[in-house]
C-alpha cells in the first residue's frame, strides 16, 4: 500500500500542487483523454467514469491519484511532474474498465492478451512486457490486482516497482 506523510509541505509538492491546479483549471478545454499515457486531467475522467472518490497523494518525483470505486476497487494513477499518467495500478473485487484505464495503450494490451495464449498456462497471472507497455495482473476472481505502465514515461529516478 502506498502511503504519504501528511504535514510537511516540500517546495516540490507545492509546485506539483500548483501544476495540478493549473491542469484542473485547463481541464474543460482539453479533449477527452483516457488515463495511461494521458494528461493528469484524464484522472478526473476516470473518476467520473468509475463513479469513485478521489484522493491525491503528492510524492517527490510523482503524485499518486487514488480513486476508490463504488465496488471497492481501488485504482491508483501515477502522475509525473509534467502531468502525464505514466502508470496505473488496481486492486479489488472487480476489474476496472481496462479500456478507460489504459487509454491509447488499450489496443496494444488487447493484442498482447490475445497473443498470450500458451495452452500450457490456463488460469494464471498475466505478464505482458513489451516496448511501450508493461501489464502484470495477479489474484483471483473477486480479488484482482494488477498494474500497467509505460516504461519510457516513468520519470528518471523512479523505480517501476513503486507502481502498485
Amino acid at each position: 500500500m502506498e502511503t504519504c506523510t501528511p504535514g510537511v509541505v516540500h517546495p516540490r509538492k507545492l509546485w506539483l500542487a500548483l501544476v495540478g491546479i493549473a491542469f484542473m483549471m485547463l481541464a474543460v478545454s482539453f479533449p477527452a483523454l483516457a488515463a495511461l499515457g494521458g494528461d493528469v486531467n484524464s484522472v478526473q475522467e476516470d473518476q467520473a467514469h468509475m463513479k469513485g472518490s478521489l484522493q491525491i497523494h503528492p510524492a517527490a518525483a510523482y503524485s499518486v491519484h487514488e480513486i476508490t470505486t463504488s465496488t471497492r476497487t481501488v485504482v491508483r494513477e501515477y502522475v509525473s511532474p509534467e502531468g502525464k499518467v505514466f502508470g496505473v495500478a488496481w486492486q479489488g473485487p472487480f476489474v476496472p474498465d481496462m479500456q478507460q484505464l489504459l487509454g491509447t495503450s488499450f489496443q496494444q494490451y488487447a493484442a498482447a492478451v490475445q497473443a498470450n495464449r500458451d495452452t500450457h498456462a490456463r488460469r494464471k497471472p498475466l505478464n505482458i512486457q513489451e516496448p511501450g507497455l508493461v501489464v502484470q495482473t495477479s489474484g483471483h476472481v473477486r480479488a484482482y490486482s494488477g498494474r500497467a505502465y509505460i516504461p519510457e514515461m516513468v520519470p528518471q529516478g523512479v523505480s517501476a516497482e513503486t507502481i502498485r
Partner: protein
Amino acid sequence: MRSFLVFALVGSLVWLVGCGGGTPVGVTPITVSLTPSSAQTINQGATLGIVATVANDPTGSGVSWNLSGVGSLNTQTETTSSVTYDAPSSVTSNTTVTVTATSIADTSATASLQITVQASSVTVSLTPSKPQIVSQGGTVSITASVKGDTTGVNWSISPASGDGTLKSETATTVTYDAPASVTSNAVVTITATSKKNTSSTAQLVINLVAPGQSNVQPIAVDGGPLTNYPDGAFTSVTICVPGTSQCQTIEGILVDTGSVGLRILASEINLPLQPLAAASGGTLNNCVSFVDGSFLWGEVEPADVYMAGEVSSELPVHVLADPTTFTIPTTCSMGGTDEDNQTALGANGIIGVGMEPTDCTIQGQNFCNVPSNQNIYYGCTSSGCEITTVPIADQVTNPVDLFAANSVTSGEDNNGVILQFPSLSGAAATLDGSMIFGIGTESNNALGGATVYTVDPSDDDFTTENFEGQTMPSSFIDSGSNGFFFPSSFIVCPDNADFYCDAQNASATNVGANNAQGIVDFTIANADDLFKTGDFAYGDLGGPNGTYPCNGTGCSFDWGLPFFFGRSVYTSIDGQTVPSGQPAAPWWAY
C-alpha cells in the same frame, strides 16, 4: 487488415458487376441437392438422416448445415456431406422445421428440407418425476400416468444389469430394487414407453449411492476433454431441468476452489433450460473475468444439479455462449479473450466451489444488489445489455452451498469441500482424487489434525512469507490455478515464459488472519522438460506472478493444484456453520 477488407470488397464488387450477377459466363453454377428431396414427417423423439450432394464444385468443399426451428442437428456425426436431425423428445403440437445445406464454395447455392415433427396424442409422465437418490437395498415404486391411451407402458432399465432390477411390472406401475450391495456410485435410468405410441416416453433417473460415498465425487487430473490441460482437476456433473428427470451428465468440468458457481458451455447442454429475467429487463446474463484477461459470458439458467448422493435444486447456472442478437458489452470483454468455447476453455465447464455462496458476494457483502459499476450482471435484449442489480437467489451460486439433507446423507453437506489427492513428485499421466462435500458433517469429512487458516475479510486471502525475503498478504489456495505461481528470482523457461525452468527445492510460510502458521516445502521442476513428457499431472510445476521482489498488498503466492497433491485441503463457505470450536467460515485448512 481493414485495407485488405476494402480491397477484397471492391474486388468482389468489380467481379459481380463484370459478370452480371454472380456466376462467371461459361462456368456451370454450383448446385446443392438433398436426400430425401421432398418434405418429411417424423415422430417426436425420432431422428432423420440427410445427405447433401454438391454439383459442379471443383473445390469439393461440401456444405455447412443450418437448422431453423425446434430440435437439433447432431454435431457428433455432422460432416460436410451429411447430418442427422434429432427431433425434440416431445412437442405440444405438430411443428415444421427447416434444415438448410449451404455450399461452402458458393454460399448462394443452398438446398432446404422441410421436416414436420408430429406431436404424439399420447403422453407419458412418471411419479416420482425427479431423480431419486437410493442406497443399497433400497426400493422405489414408480407409477406411470398415460394421457390419450389406456393400454399403458412397457418398462426398461439402463444399464440392463448390475445396477438394480425392475419387478412387479404392470401396465402403469413398477418397482425398482437396488442391489443388496453397492460398491461404487452409479446412475440408473428407468424408461416407460407407451405401448400405443413408442415415441412417447418418460424417464426416471436413479442415483445409486454406495455406503460412505454419498458425499464423495471422483475427480481426476487427466488433461480434460481435449487431453491438453496440464494440472487441471476434472469431474462430471448431472444437470436436470428443474423438478424433472430430463437430465444430462456432462464430463470435463474443471474443479476450481478459486471461483464460485457452476459454468457450463451451452454447446454441451441439450436440455431446455430457461434463463432468469433481469431486474433491468431482458434475460439475466453473467460475465466472469479471470486474471489472465480471459472472460466467460452467458445466461443464468436454473438447473437441478446432482453429484454423488447430493442435490442442489434450482441452482442458478452460468450457461456459456456468445450472444447471437447483441454483442458482449465492452465492460465485460475489455479486450480479453472470449473462452465461450471448448478450445479456448480447455474444459466443458468450471465448477467453482470456493469460499463464497455466490459470485457477487465477499464475506456477507453483496456487490450486486445495489446500482453500481460492477461488471458481472447484465440484463440483455436484442437491442443490447445494461448492468443490472441481482438478488442473491438469482446469482450464480456455489452448488455446495445449496446442498440439502437427503435420505443418504447424515445432514447438510453444504459448508465446504475437501479436495484429496495422493502425493506426486515429477509427472504422471493422470492422478485420481476425490472431492468430498461437507466439513465435519459425515464420518468421512472430519477436520482431524488439519490447521485452520482464516482469511482477510476484504479479499478472502491470507499471507505467504519467508520466501526470498518477500511478504505477500494477497496469497491464496486455488485448485483452478494450474501450478504454483509466485514472484521469484527463479529463471523462466525459454520455451514457456509463463513457467519456471529452475529446478529448486524451496519453502514458504503461510500465515492465516488468525495467526495460524505453517511452513510449506515445495519443489519446482523444469517446466519445459515436464511438458515434453506428454503427461498431465505435475507435482512440481511453477511460474512467475507479477513483479519481483514483491512486498505488501496485491503481492500473492498462488498455491495452485500441485499444492493439493498429498494433502486433504479444506475450503469452507462463508455464512455456513462449521464444526464447533473452529473459527467462523470462510477459511482454508490442511
